[in-house]
Each structure stands twice: as C-alpha cells, then as structure tokens.
C-alpha cells in the first residue's frame, strides 16, 4: 500500500510581485513511498526538500497558496481536497526548529496538547501521552519545562507531540540541524525505534549521510526542485558525482573504496563503518580476491 503518491507534481509559491511568476519550487516530482518505509530526503539548500515535506501534509498549497498541478496523494487522500487539520491527524510534521513548535509549560502538557484538541477522554489522552513519552524515552523529563531541555531533548519532545496524535506517517524536516552529535544520535535512535516497533512511515529531510546509511531504506536526492536520484543507500552512495551535483556528501567510508581504486586496490563498495572494516580486513586476508 502506498503512503505517498506524487506524479507529475509541480508547484510554485505565489509571486513576490504582481504580473510575475515565481519559479517552480517543485518540478515533475515522481515519488511513491510504501507504508512502513523510511525514506531520507537529501539535497542542497533550496533544492525543494522542505516544500516537498509540506506538500505531504497539504500545507502546500493549502496554507502557502501558489500554483500546483499533478497527483498529490497522501495515505489515499487527495492532499489538496482534505483540510490540513484533518490530514494532520494522520500525518505528523516536525520542523527544523523545535522552539517554533513548543509553547507549553511542561513536556507532558506539550505532548497532551494535540490529543486534547481531538476531544478525547481524559484517560485516552493520558494513555497517548504515556505511550508517546515512552517511545521517545522522555518519561524522566515529563515534568520539566522546555527551557530546561537540551536541543536534542526539545526535538524529541516535538516528535513526541506529533506522535501523540497517533499519525500513520511522520515527516521530519531537518530535525537535527543545529543539534550537537549527541542530540543528533538521540533523534535518529528515536526514529529507528519508531520504524522498527511501529512500522511507521517516515520521511526525513536531512544532511546526515552516515546516519542515513545506517538506518534509512531509501535515499531520495533532490536538486533544483526535481528528484535526481531515488535508490537504496547502498546504491545511492555509490554515485559520488551525482551526489556532488546535488550538494550531498556520501558517508566518508563510501568514498574510501573509490580512493583505494585510484591507487590500484579494488574493493567491493561499502557505505557503513562495519562493512568497510569487514571488506578491508577481507582484502588483507585474501589479497587476490
């Protein structure tokens, strides 16, 4: 079953001045995401990743305006026909800057806000809050205020708040930019857990190639509003020239194989640290293959 279905999808923001047309922010998007898939969106600044994220919960074009054409189907709904508020129950969107999303005096009140607005019973709200806090490993912090949290913790609260709506799909727009390595690792661990335990469909815009290689099922690389490459990490990260064109760095270890080849040593491609170690040790033991 498809969670996301975009065909011949074009979008441009409203023009800045009358009688002018803004350039297309998304052009000819062909994208299908299966339910339960974890897809990483990569690409240069301004490639259209955020716009595509917002198109997946209907904010584009319902809140942004502008001109749109093509198929834009999310969880079986025509994303332009269903109000964003309704789509938001099924599609959770987490932005880059958690500060822009957090406003309650405590973590548990923040996470309860969405379910309270669904008009659920007190018990049902409490269950959802507990569940979301458990999933994001936030129970010890539930009474804290947002200002007492680190960047990674704040971002996990933002994800928990989205999760408490029990969406079928989670879209995260560069949730780790500006976070330190610990915060980044915390956020990725949470996403991996959601994929493994809940079979959540996840679309994640990110620049973190090493983490993507470790946990994403697919890499979709965007450039200038189009999809340049759509492949599993092992294939995607073997195309450094194409990635460079899109301003994306593959994980460092996947560049090692190419650098060794230039020096006359042929090794099978790898894109994770463990694989690289195994391949290079193998070469040591069996120098002639």
């Amino acid at each position: 079953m498809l969670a996301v279905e975009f065909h011949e999808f074009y979008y441009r923001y409203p023009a800045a001045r009358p009688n002018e047309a803004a350039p297309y922010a998304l052009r000819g998007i062909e994208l299908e995401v299966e339910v339960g898939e974890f897809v990483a969106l990569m690409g240069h600044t301004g490639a259209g990743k955020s716009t595509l994220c917002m198109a997946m919960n209907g904010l584009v074009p319902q809140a942004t305006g502008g001109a749109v054409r093509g198929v834009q189907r999310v969880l079986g709904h025509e994303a332009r026909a269903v109000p964003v508020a309704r789509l938001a129950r099924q599609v959770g969107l987490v932005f880059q800057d958690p500060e822009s999303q957090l406003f309650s005096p405590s973590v548990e009140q923040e996470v309860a806000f969405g379910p309270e607005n669904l008009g659920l019973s007190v018990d049902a709200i409490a269950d959802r809050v507990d569940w979301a806090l458990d999933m994001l490993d936030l129970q010890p912090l539930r009474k804290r205020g947002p200002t007492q949290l680190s960047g990674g913790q704040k971002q996990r609260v933002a994800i928990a708040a989205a999760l408490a709506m029990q969406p079928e799909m989670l879209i995260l727009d560069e949730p780790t930019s500006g976070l330190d390595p610990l915060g980044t690792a915390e956020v990725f661990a949470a996403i991996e857990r959601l994929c493994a335990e809940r079979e959540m469909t996840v679309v994640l815009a990110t620049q973190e190639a090493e983490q993507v290689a470790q946990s994403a099922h697919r890499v979709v690389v965007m450039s200038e509003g189009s999809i340049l490459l759509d492949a599993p990490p092992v294939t995607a990260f073997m195309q450094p020239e194409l990635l460079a064109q899109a301003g994306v760095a593959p994980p460092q270890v996947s560049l090692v194989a190419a650098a060794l080849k230039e020096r006359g040593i042929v090794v099978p491609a790898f894109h994770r640290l463990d694989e690289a170690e195994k391949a290079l040790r193998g070469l040591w033991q069996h120098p002639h293959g």
Partner: protein
Amino acid sequence: MAELAARFRGVHYHYPGVPALEGVDFELRAGEFCALVGQNGSGKSTLAKHLNGLLKPVSGFVEVFGRDTRSQAVGELARKVGYVFQNPDHQIFSARVRDELAFGPRNLRLPHDEVERRVDEALDGFGLRAYADMPPATLGFGLRRLVSVAAVFAMRPSLFVLDEPTAELDWRSAHELLDHFRELHQQGHTILLISHDMELVAEYAERVLLMQAGRIVADAPPGAFFGQTARLREAHLSPPQVMRLAQRLGDLGMPPETLTVDAFADAFARLWREAHHAG
C-alpha cells in the same frame, strides 16, 4: 613569540542565575585556524561573544590583540573582530545586498571611495556581484549566509569568529564557505570556527579546543585531538568516520590519526603493498 589575537585568563561569566563560563584560560595566536567544539550549552557562543566585547567577563579578563576588552567599546572591537552569527537573518537588515555590505565600512567612517572599493571586493570575493541590487530577503538561505559573511569581510577584521556558520548549509555550500576562510587564513587572518561537524573541523582547523561545562578541557591539533577517545566519548563527540575506520584497523598498522579519505587511502595502500610485496 607569536603575536596573540586573544588571551583569556580566569574568565567567568554567568547569565542571570546560570553559570556559562567557569574559568576559561587560553590563548589564540594570530594567524591560527582554530576550531571550538562541544555540546549545545557548553559555553562556546558565550566565549565567542567575549571576543567582540558583546559580553565582558564577570571576573578574569580577555585581551584582544593585546588590549583588555573592558577598555574597548564594541564599535572599536568591531574593527578587529568580525563576528558571523549562526543565523544570517540576525545580521541582515538592509534593502539591497550592496547596502548591507556598505553598512559596516560606513560606520567606520571611511571615505566614500574606500567604502565602494570594499563593497566591490566583497561582492567579487564571495560571488555576489549578480545579486548586488537585490533585497537580501529574497535570496535563498545559502546566499543570505554569504551576504552575512561578505558584510563582515568588508570590515576587514583581523580575527573572524564564526558561530556555526555551516549549520544549515548543504555539504557543497559548507565547503565553499570554509574555502573562503581557508584563503583568508592563508592571507594571515585568524579564524575561530565553532562547529558540530567533526569532518569539517578535521579538514579545516589546525587546532581544536573542546568546551565542557564552561571550561576548555582539551586543546590539541586535530589528529591528536580526535585520538583522545575517552575524553571525546565523555563529551559525546566522535571523530570523523574515516578516522574511526583507521582506529578499528590499528592492528593492521593504520595510523590512528588519519583525518581524511585521501590520507586513509594513502596509508592503507602503502601498508597493503608492504604486506603483500605487490608494489
């Protein structure tokens, strides 16, 4: 002895009720390309703001190019210290890119011709000529970042303080930006780069400082710095991936201080040939 760009001695600073710097001691030599790393909240930005006088120590002192910052106004320090903020939009306010670049030099009360010359150099140096008459707000993030850097460049500071300048840039734009600073470094400028990106730190910096809980707890060249496994783990940092690979292959003879892909491939190829008599 090399000239000092900055000297911190016993520097303490606290925001209302929250300690931020708890005894910082270090010297930044003129002409260095130094990285400052550490977790969010460890005090990096607070330290950086002591360099341009935005903050003054509660106790201890900071000297910039030999003079105590407490005896200098922010405007005076701005001639020597260029501060690039994490978010370019905190810096940019003019209606045209050209005006944004002219703002600083005009404030230095430079003659009109000199202001124009500096604006031209900044436009060309950062590839912004085509955008000179456009409103910065209409440019994409990467270009706004360049405008904010070019505006600081037009002030001709000796010391550039870069507060996570690549946080929201893609890989290519981050390299392009830091290549500009590598060039400025080669021309003799001092660079202090705050970053969470250990690959960029390994690639560009010649010295790395680690901050933890308001203190500098490690200070070494990148190779030796990233070799301090226990200390890094304590600070929740890890070396660049290629260095972790080299460390794992230490038993084959890979140097643990291998910082880049090319250095790794060179070392591995040499070892492999030696071991297999194939070269």
